[in-house]
């Protein structure tokens, strides 16, 4: 006679602190023993009200606001915003400005992919890879700082062009840095292809077929690693990509291993196109004059951020402020792939699968103001927030 068993799903909450990267998101995984049977997500822990905030600021102020959507691909956000607003105004930035935009976009992709390589090494228990790749990432961070004055929010764009030129000395420094990074990247590709513990943590983990990737709306390297040939730099070239095209990198593996290989191989394309831009940078102006008011209408631009497709839809009523700014970031599009592919895996694989899409929580969280759980006062001034922070910190000690 069989003993009577009661089946009830056991839920393991993960987050909001540090579910994979050092950013907040809350997940609930239903488990049967060690095996995951269901998954759900709750976001918004770093939501800042950027879409709403944009409606109350003028066109130029918003360039600085959207650059702060993401701390990793800040230049991508500023560029797609500038391209969209320029399209609305019927203005095109000069060729030299477009080439410099692409140059910084690709330098940013290099730093983003190297950062991710370190994270996936760390989550996989391979901290040596993490330390070396982040050490080498400092090369490209220094190049970006030398070029723009900043490590994070480069603030290269203005509406109608760019504000940073590239001098011959800077071009030489970038070439030299890129040479070193290319050599190191060959080494990393070799490491991830042959290291048995890395392969053990990534092969077959988070597997997704091409059909699934399409059905789940996957974007970027996550989609390309499942054989979906989709890259907006190639499908709908923007900025200087018509003049300086890149090759599509795809893989058919569909797992975290394939996502690693795709990102590492994309680095070589970055290095190649960066050299090409430096060698044939068009001469001419950096900016054209941009009006204070933008004529009524709407524009939509989709670009390829390091994590995948990024969309801006902007509507103007003819004034100094936008009527609506809609942003769809790549991480939001990729959550569906995590929630689906994680089912059937061991709980210990969760960080690798979460990390596999290169999630960026700040990107998908954009919208709302802080609310204390206590008291009736919902809307804080900056001064109140500051005092709360000081009191909280004093209380912790």
């Amino acid at each position, binding site marked *: 006679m069989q003993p009577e068993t009661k089946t009830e799903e056991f839920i393991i909450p993960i987050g909001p602190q540090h579910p994979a990267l050092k950013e907040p998101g809350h997940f609930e995984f239903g488990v049967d023993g060690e095996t995951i049977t269901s998954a759900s997500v709750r976001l918004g822990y770093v*939501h800042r009200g950027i879409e709403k905030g944009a409606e109350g600021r003028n066109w130029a102020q918003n360039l600085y606001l959207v650059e702060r959507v993401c701390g990793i691909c800040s230049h991508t956000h500023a560029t797609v915003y500038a391209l969209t607003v320029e399209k609305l105004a019927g203005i095109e930035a000069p060729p030299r400005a477009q080439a410099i935009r692409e140059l910084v976009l690709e330098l940013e992709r290099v730093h983003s992919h190297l950062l991710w390589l370190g994270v996936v090494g760390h989550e996989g228990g391979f901290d040596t890879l993490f330390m070396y790749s982040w050490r080498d990432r400092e090369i490209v961070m220094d190049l970006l700082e030398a070029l723009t004055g900043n490590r994070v929010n480069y603030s290269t764009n203005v509406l109608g062009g760019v504000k940073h030129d590239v001098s011959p000395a800077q071009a030489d420094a970038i070439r030299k840095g890129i040479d070193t990074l290319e050599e190191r990247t060959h080494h990393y590709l070799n490491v991830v292809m042959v290291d048995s513990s890395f392969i053990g943590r990534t092969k077959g983990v988070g597997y997704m077929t091409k059909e699934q990737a399409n059905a*789940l709306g996957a974007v970027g390297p996550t989609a390309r690693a499942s054989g979906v040939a989709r890259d907006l730099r190639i499908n709908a070239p923007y900025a200087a990509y018509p003049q300086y095209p890149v090759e599509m990198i795809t893989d058919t593996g569909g797992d975290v291993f394939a996502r690693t290989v795709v990102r590492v191989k994309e680095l070589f394309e970055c290095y190649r196109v960066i050299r090409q831009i430096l060698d044939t940078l068009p001469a001419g102006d950096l900016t054209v004059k941009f009006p204070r008011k933008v004529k009524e209408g709407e524009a939509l631009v989709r670009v390829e951020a390091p994590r995948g497709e990024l969309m801006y*839809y902007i509507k103007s009523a003819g004034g100094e402020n936008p009527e*609506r700014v809609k942003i769809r970031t790549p991480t939001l599009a990729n959550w569906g792939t995590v929630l689906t592919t994680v089912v059937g895996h061991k709980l210990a694989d969760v960080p690798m699968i979460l990390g596999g899409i290169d999630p960026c929580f700040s990107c998908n969280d954009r*919208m709302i103001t802080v609310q204390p759980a206590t008291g009736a006062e919902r809307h804080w001034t900056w001064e109140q927030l500051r005092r709360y922070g000081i009191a909280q910190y004093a209380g912790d000690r």
Partner: protein
Amino acid sequence: MSNESALETANALLAPFAQGTARPDPLRLDAMLAADQLLPAVKALMDNKWGYLVAISGVDLGLATGQLEVLYHFGGADNGITTSLRVRIPRDNASVPSVCGLVPSASLYERELSEMLGITVVDTPNPTHLFLPDGWPDGLYPLRKDAAVPVATTLNS
């Protein structure tokens, strides 16, 4: 598929359901739809594997118009075309049908649309908050033009 043939295919697929179509720029096609034609139009795109759902944008057209607009942006499968299905609905009792039965990945976008603009998405599989915090007041939809959400004052004062 080339951009031009992708545009023609989308136009032919959507024409039976649309009140009108437009070409706002060389890479875009807009189809204006009544709310009850949304699902057949999405089905036509999906059945023909025309592309994938990129995003759902909600726009408040303002108190004067009394309308909201919902745009379903689809990207071509292997090209640079964006097709937007545009549905206008009244601000009061705003509702659209869920497209999740045809596009499973729409769930997160529908949760965002619903909580930010106060649009009921009928039959969406998970109608809970995605971004807004627990305990967020009922009936306060931050992306509505008349919503008193003091983000700007919080940041500027």
